[in-house]
């Protein structure tokens, strides 16, 4: 029994402001395309059925599960991954975004595996609601699983990120 060769599709993905051309089969999950074809391994895969949120990326600014999209279906979108969150400040590494800095300040992560999905989700959440209450901060992260932190410090990180955003806005 011989299988036929799987058809490959030329896909142009816009990720973190860069255009990438990849040849992938239609079934390639966007999460796998980002990680394995583009080498952007910051997006993590925790369940591949859309529940855990580790693979959350921004698609045209909205948080979506990369494991629930196909690369071929993401052609027209502007994608942001965790690697695209840092702010350019002239340094090679770039400056941590307010959300990233908030996590660092508040011990919002332990093993770091779920973290990228939280960072992208909160980045969009604070854009829509720059001054959340604690309750709103909890709602903002309510679709992401973390096994390490018990979420206590992630909630604090959201509030701290909002504060940093304001501080940076004032000093700019």
């Amino acid at each position, binding site marked *: 029994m011989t299988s036929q060769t*799987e*058809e490959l*599709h030329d896909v142009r993905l816009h990720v973190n402001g860069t255009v990438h051309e990849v040849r992938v*089969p*239609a*079934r390639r*999950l966007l999460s*796998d395309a980002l990680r394995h074809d583009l080498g952007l391994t910051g997006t993590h895969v925790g369940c*591949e*059925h*859309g529940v855990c*949120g580790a693979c*959350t990326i921004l*698609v045209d600014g*909205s*948080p*979506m*599960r990369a*494991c*629930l*999209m*196909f690369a*071929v*279906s993401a*052609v*027209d979108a502007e994608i942001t991954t965790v690697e695209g969150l840092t702010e350019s400040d002239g340094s090679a590494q770039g400056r941590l975004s307010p959300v990233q800095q908030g996590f660092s300040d508040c011990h919002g992560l332990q093993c770091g595996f779920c973290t990228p999905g939280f960072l992208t*989700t909160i980045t969009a959440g604070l854009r829509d609601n720059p001054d959340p209450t604690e309750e709103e901060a909890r709602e903002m992260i*309510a*679709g*992401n699983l973390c096994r390490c932190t018990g979420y206590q410090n992630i909630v604090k990180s959201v509030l701290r990120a909002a504060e940093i955003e304001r501080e940076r806005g004032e000093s700019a």
Partner: protein
Amino acid sequence: MKPAPFAYLRPSTLDEALTALAGEQGAKVLAGGQSLVPLLSMRLAAPAMLIDINALPDLGSVQVDESGVRIGALARHAEVLASSEAAEVQPLLAMALSHVAHPTIRNRGTTVGSIVHADAAAEMPMVLRLLEGSVDVASVRGRRTIPAAELFAGPLESTLAHDELAVGAFFPALAAGAGVGFQEIARRHGDYALVGVAAHVQLDGDAVASARIGFVSVSDVPVVVDVTDAVQDTAGDPAAAALAELDPADDIHATAAYRAHLVKVLVPKVLAAATDHARERARQRMDS
């Protein structure tokens, strides 16, 4: 957990999509994919072809007028939820949509896709039935409108023919003197409901002219029960009347008895909320 291979088509016109759908028995439509992709990844479904409708024009709109809310096949749950006009004309939409999974899923998942997925554990198929809305479908053979009452054939099965594509759904506006309510109980915030209850109450003056209740997760297919008689009868028990029509089942999260109990707990609360809502709307109407 990776999907089996499939052929892939990303048509740019509706005709192209419908022709492809008619030409491939094993084709499935990909819109939001939030229910479909996990099934593919777990290899619980392995369609020969996916027809990705995300590039089709004119399907992403949420149109609101005084007759109701018309939702295109590519309108995401989040877009419907964000429409204050839609919430104004048919408040149950927002009440129910805020319970559909988590916001990240709502950003991609489509309301029309959820409806034709026909899951009795999902909110929107039931809401369409309760509001007596409809779905517009298209095929190479033409177009038709399927009333919600005729949409659900069985568990996870709609009455769309294989070659038909759902292009939109229509939710009628909430009539004057009517009110709605929604409440559900889930194990975790954002999970499928153990039991979800929505009510639609139509007042005639201060009296209840009709009361209908839709249920989530207590039957195989999206179900609506008319409890007008039980409500109008002062000795009536709307929850008991409803339970006679329902078929709650045991699963790993709850027993059938507990689900039936939740029906009894929720029905009076949601009916009361819907009735209050109707009165509140009537009062606002008089004020304005």
